[in-house]
């Protein structure tokens, strides 16, 4: 009989939490937003994290394939990053003036990301996408933005959908929506709204939730670039999720095109809170005119962490390493699934793969698989792309695949009618 994890202390803490926090755990780490189905199979709180692992309040250890939804890119508590952060903290963090590290980090980004002529620092991915849009509007004097249906650019009202709580119809009225990989639809929108479109914003590939991730069709980005040039539209890449997991030079470089603005956050500082927008020379003036700031805008510790993180990613050839690790993990998962008659579809770039059990169209088997893995110490979610980090070892991968094999077996036993013959 296998010993499956229990999460009693997580539950107890959650009962305290619901009394003092809306929903108990607000935001995307909440058990509902995280698609913990059933919630009883998953921990709600982490006690600590190291490398590719985290431990819940009950002492259970998990091999982590969510990496805090992206920020963990080198491994939790990476020594190089934490040493740089400690060193800067000893000098000063939030000060009345920015630290010299701000310039060092901006230079690093300008020298690293292909299209960057300047950098602007913020705190979260959503800050970055909103600042990028404001910059595009300031530069063009136009209002509209073309977005991709199903695309995610944060939680500012303009990024949300109709009916979302607290979002007004007027918040959404400048949005024009186009399907992914459909340059003709984008062209039609630009034609129909000539001289009114300020920006086109999209992720470098379609890594939406609840759907197989789609890479750009051949020529798609080049065509979008042409259309933006023709219509004077600012091309914004939201590289918040994919940044530094495909290429150090930016995911646009990986796919062979040059945006005007690019937004970074998750992998930038290995968990320290900072985001960045980088841009081309032509948008420097507009970016200068947009007033966008906050209490912690110039805090120096995350900048030191980011500088160290970028250095480590370069040293390790991080994107290539994570892609290679992702290939090993996904190949092993597919083999384990096939043994049980389960059709596991893997999509996206391997360093941030999405997986889906395709035997039924309801995701119930997928949810069961993730729950069975969680009960045995491997942390997957059923709705979102996963994230690799550089510290994942061959032992971690071997343990993951052993656990996955048992989880697939449990799924097969529960849904025998859905298995491939």
């Amino acid at each position, binding site marked *: 009989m296998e010993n499956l994890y229990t999460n009693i202390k997580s539950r107890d803490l*959650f009962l305290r939490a619901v009394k003092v926090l809306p*929903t*108990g755990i607000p935001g995307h780490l909440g058990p*509902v937003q995280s698609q913990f189905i059933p919630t009883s199979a998953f921990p709600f709180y982490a006690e600590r994290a190291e490398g590719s692992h985290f431990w819940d309040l009950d002492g259970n250890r998990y091999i982590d394939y969510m990496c805090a939804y992206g920020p963990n890119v080198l491994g939790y508590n990476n020594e190089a990053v934490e040493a740089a952060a400690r060193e800067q903290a000893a000098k000063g963090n939030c000060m009345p003036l920015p630290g010299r590290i701000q310039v060092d980090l901006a230079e690093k980004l300008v020298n690293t990301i292909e299209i960057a002529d300047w950098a602007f620092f913020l705190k979260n991915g959503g800050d970055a996408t909103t600042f990028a849009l404001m910059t595009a509007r300031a530069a063009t004097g136009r209002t509209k933005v073309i977005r991709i249906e199903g695309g995610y650019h944060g939680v500012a009202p303009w990024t949300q959908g109709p*009916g979302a709580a607290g979002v007004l119809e007027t918040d959404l009225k400048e949005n024009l929506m186009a399907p992914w990989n459909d340059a003709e639809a984008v062209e039609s929108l630009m034609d129909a709204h000539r001289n009114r479109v300020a920006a086109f914003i999209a992720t470098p590939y379609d890594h939406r939730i609840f759907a197989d991730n789609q890479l750009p069709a051949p020529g798609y980005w080049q065509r979008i670039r042409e259309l933006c040039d023709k219509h004077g539209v600012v091309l914004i890449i939201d590289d918040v999720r994919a940044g530094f997991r495909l290429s150090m030079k930016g995911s646009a470089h990986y796919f062979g095109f040059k945006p005007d603005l690019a937004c970074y956050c998750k992998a930038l500082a290995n968990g320290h809170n900072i985001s960045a927008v980088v841009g081309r020379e032509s948008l420097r003036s507009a970016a200068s005119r947009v007033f966008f700031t906050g209490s912690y805008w110039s805090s120096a510790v995350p900048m030191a962490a980011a500088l160290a993180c970028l250095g480590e990613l370069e040293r390790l050839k991080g994107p290539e390493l994570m892609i290679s690790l992702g290939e090993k993990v996904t190949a092993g998962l597919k083999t384990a699934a096939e043994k049980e008659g389960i059709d596991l579809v893997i999509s996206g770039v391997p360093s941030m793969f999405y997986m889906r059990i395709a035997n039924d*169209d*309801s995701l119930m088997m997928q949810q069961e698989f993730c729950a069975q893995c969680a009960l045995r110490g491997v942390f997957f979610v059923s709705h979102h792309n996963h994230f690799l980090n550089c510290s994942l070892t061959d032992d971690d991968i071997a343990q993951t695949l052993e656990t996955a094999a048992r989880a697939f077996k449990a799924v097969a036993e529960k849904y025998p009618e859905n298995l491939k013959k």
Partner: protein
Amino acid sequence: MKNALILARCNLFGVMRNLEVLGSLDQGFQDLARRREMTVQFIVKGGPLGHLSFNGGTVVMKEGRGRSRIILSFTSPDHFNRMVEGKANPLPLKGFTRLKFLTGPFTEMTGLLEKYLRPDEEALKDPVKFKASTILTAYTAFFSLVEIANHDPVGRACARAIPDGTIQIGINGGPGIQIHAQGGTLRAERGYAAKPRAILSFRDLTSAHAVLNGCADTFTALALGDMEMRGFIPMIEHMNPILEMVSLYLK
């Protein structure tokens, strides 16, 4: 924003549709409905058209015109809504001789329904009334949701995002409601589906009552296991904003 036409549709096809099932929950209603053979037609100018048929204890609500012996006319959706609130009277166009039914048994029936949908605290201490109130509230919420999804502009935008398939709403040990989504149009049906694409279930009547009456938030209920969702969650996620609109309409 709240719209009188949509509210009228919710009142007719969400609230008053409950008369179809009230007989299975309340003996008094059963006694009133037994031996009735008639159809009441509702005509709302600039609003919904529906008829309620009584046939030997069975009650059926349908959209559109029926062969009716009583026609109740309303000058506007607002007029109909005020009638539902008890603040206005309909204009009987046909069936004057049956005014006795309208002012007597029919008024008693709708009064019973109101008692379950707006119960006082004392009534909710009675397990039978609590159960009936919760079930009728659930039917009201999800049948009204469909009206909002198909007719309210924001509701329609949300409904268009719901992938095709059936969402099964269920109360453990209680009734089920199926929401069928097809091409952005929703349809509600009582009962359980053989193969739903998504499932939203309540642990029991108590949790359903708390959530549907706004006494518990859904996120917490889901986290604590008082509610559970499974399957193709985007269906439920895109339905949720419409469910929230129900409480705005039927507050």
